[in-house]
């Protein structure tokens, strides 16, 4: 995962580099084209000067007998030359070309303008040339300067871009920081982020409103659970008190006391059911605190210790294998205990004598996981798919099981961002896999 500001800076760097590369590829020919244009203009101006001169003073001063109808002039460094020659040519010539000329034993590349004109019935060819070597040399130097300049420009703008986007995106960073580690909307920092960017302002205020809304919903849900709890538990406790007091009367016979105990059992079932539903509602509206830190294996060992007598009595081998451990932070120990307990308890109850229940903790792909497998009767795929929904578990097979234990485990796992997956094969057994979040 790459941060937005880095992405933006990288993008601008890459586009700049791209443009630079394109520029560098086309620069030499562009340079050549521009300089040739300039040279050509220069040559044409010189031609005009010469023509004006000739029309003013005539051709004779150039064409003397000892020059044999040829006039030539070049400066000391042979950068430019002008030549006039009488030729026999009927066609008009007027073009510019690059040619090599041998001047005083030296071959030099020239840009040469050829122009023919007529004076007194004779045709003359005017050549105006300019050496390209000095021009090329200069353009090479300019090219170097430009490359260095571009490099610095890119470097400086990249740093500036990085700084500016960092400054620009700071409010976004603050918003993401506010969201990090939020386990409960009520602890969301309600202080608005200071920014002049309207998009961030909007994002921030929308988030705050959303959080407030969720918080209110949670509060409402909390009130509802408190009220439901009160309304349902109060009559149950009155009934329970009455029945327990009745059971303690000395003048009742066995038949009556058995009936009372049966009523108490039924009442207890109702109580457990209501408590389970309330527990799920409380977990889902995040009423439980998550502020404990503990070792997961220690919880697993405790559960195995608790359930071992039952397993032994049923002739089931309940074993633990702890390859790795995890120090769980910001969690609720009694909830995590219940989460595993329900699953191990379920496994023990669904395994017949001679079977096995195995609890294992290990690390796979960098994630801590707990695997609870049994050699029980297994489930069909459709049973697995509804395993975690309330009241839909193996009701038919497990007698009085209200089928809510696994739903509780699931909501506890969700509350702690733990993933649960189940694999089951009929007559072979079931495996529960708890995958803990990566950063834990």
């Amino acid at each position: 995962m790459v941060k937005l500001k880095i992405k933006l800076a990288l993008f601008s760097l890459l586009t700049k580099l791209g443009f630079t590369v394109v520029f560098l590829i086309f620069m030499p020919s562009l340079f050549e084209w521009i300089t040739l244009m300039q040279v050509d203009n220069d040559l044409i101006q010189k031609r005009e000067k010469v023509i004006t001169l000739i029309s003013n003073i005539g051709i004779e001063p150039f064409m003397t007998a000892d020059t044999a109808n040829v006039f030539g002039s070049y400066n000391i460094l042979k950068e430019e030359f002008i030549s006039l020659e009488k030729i026999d040519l009927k066609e008009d010539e007027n073009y510019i070309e690059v040619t090599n000329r041998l001047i005083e034993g030296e071959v030099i590349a020239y840009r040469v303008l050829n122009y023919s004109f007529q004076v007194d019935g004779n045709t003359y060819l005017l050549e105006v040339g300019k050496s390209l070597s000095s021009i090329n040399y200069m353009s090479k130097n300019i090219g170097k300067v430009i490359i260095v300049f571009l490099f610095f420009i890119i470097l400086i703008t990249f740093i500036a871009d990085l700084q500016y986007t960092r400054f620009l995106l700071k409010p976004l960073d603050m918003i993401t920081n506010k969201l990090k580690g939020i386990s409960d909307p009520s602890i969301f920092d309600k202080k608005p982020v200071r920014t002049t960017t309207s998009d961030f302002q909007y994002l921030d205020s929308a988030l705050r409103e959303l959080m407030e809304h969720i918080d209110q919903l949670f509060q409402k849900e909390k009130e509802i659970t408190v009220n439901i709890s009160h309304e349902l538990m109060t009559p149950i406790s009155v009934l329970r008190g009455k029945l327990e007091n009745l059971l303690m009367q000395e003048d009742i016979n066995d038949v009556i006391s058995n009936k009372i105990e049966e009523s108490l059992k039924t009442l207890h079932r109702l109580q457990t059911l209501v408590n389970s539903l309330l527990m799920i509602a409380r977990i889902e509206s995040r009423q439980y605190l998550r502020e404990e830190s503990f070792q997961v294996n220690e919880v697993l060992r405790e559960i195995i210790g608790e359930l071992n007598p039952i397993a032994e009595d049923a002739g089931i081998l309940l074993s633990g294998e702890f390859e790795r451990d995890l120090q769980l932070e910001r969690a609720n120990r009694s909830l995590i205990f219940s989460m595993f307990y329900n699953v191990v308890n379920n496994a023990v109850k669904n395994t017949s004598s001679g079977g096995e229940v195995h609890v294992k903790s290990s690390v796979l792909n960098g994630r801590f996981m707990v695997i609870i497998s049994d050699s029980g009767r297994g489930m069909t795929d459709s049973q697995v798919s509804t395993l975690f929904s309330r009241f839909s578990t193996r009701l038919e097979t497990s007698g009085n099981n209200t089928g809510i234990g696994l739903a509780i485990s699931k909501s506890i796992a969700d509350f702690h961002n733990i993933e649960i997956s189940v694999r089951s094969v009929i007559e072979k057994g079931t495996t529960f896999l708890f995958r803990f979040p990566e950063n834990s």
Partner: protein
Amino acid sequence: MNVLIVEDETGLANEIAAFLKREGFLCEMSFTGSDASEKIAVNLYDFILLDLGLPDYNGLDLIKEARGNGSDAAFIIITARGAVEDKVKGLDLGADDYLAKPFALVELLSRIQAVARRKFNMPNQNLNIGEFTIELQSRKLTCKGKEVIITKKEFDLLHYLVMNRNRVLTRNQLYEHIWGNILDDQYDSNFIDVHIKNVRKKLNEHAPSPWLETVRGIGYRVSM
């Protein structure tokens, strides 16, 4: 000992009072917070059983008032609200224990006794049953001076039964006392039966334990 039951549900208050009276407590009842507030200001109580869900009063305020009056009554909060923070707040305010409704009356009694021992600095006396001794200080079970090795849960189970000797305890009452925080939805749990079986086996290796009785269809009882 004087107990004030602050509970707006008269049906429950009556049952608690009837039970505690049988156990030898002096009981008074308040069905409203304001009535309780007056009673606490005037009378001295050893125990105040406080329902937090009073219609006219925030139950937690009663603790503050009582402490302000210099009352050193022990508060046991009994509530059906089940809000997680109620427990924390209540204990922070100086309540001595917390019991969620519905609870077993014998559980309430055992909490009261535990708080009383703490509060009035009563030494943990060893309990004798048959040839066995439950040593509460070291949490050990011995038989004629020899230690009987039992698990913590088995110890708790036996201790609870002996404390409530001559009273039948149902499997639920035993289960709730020992595994109180665990919600077992699989109601026909034979947890208690298995544990009692194990306890008996361990006891019988040292001496017979005819006093640990199974009361058919109901539960278990220690008879002495």
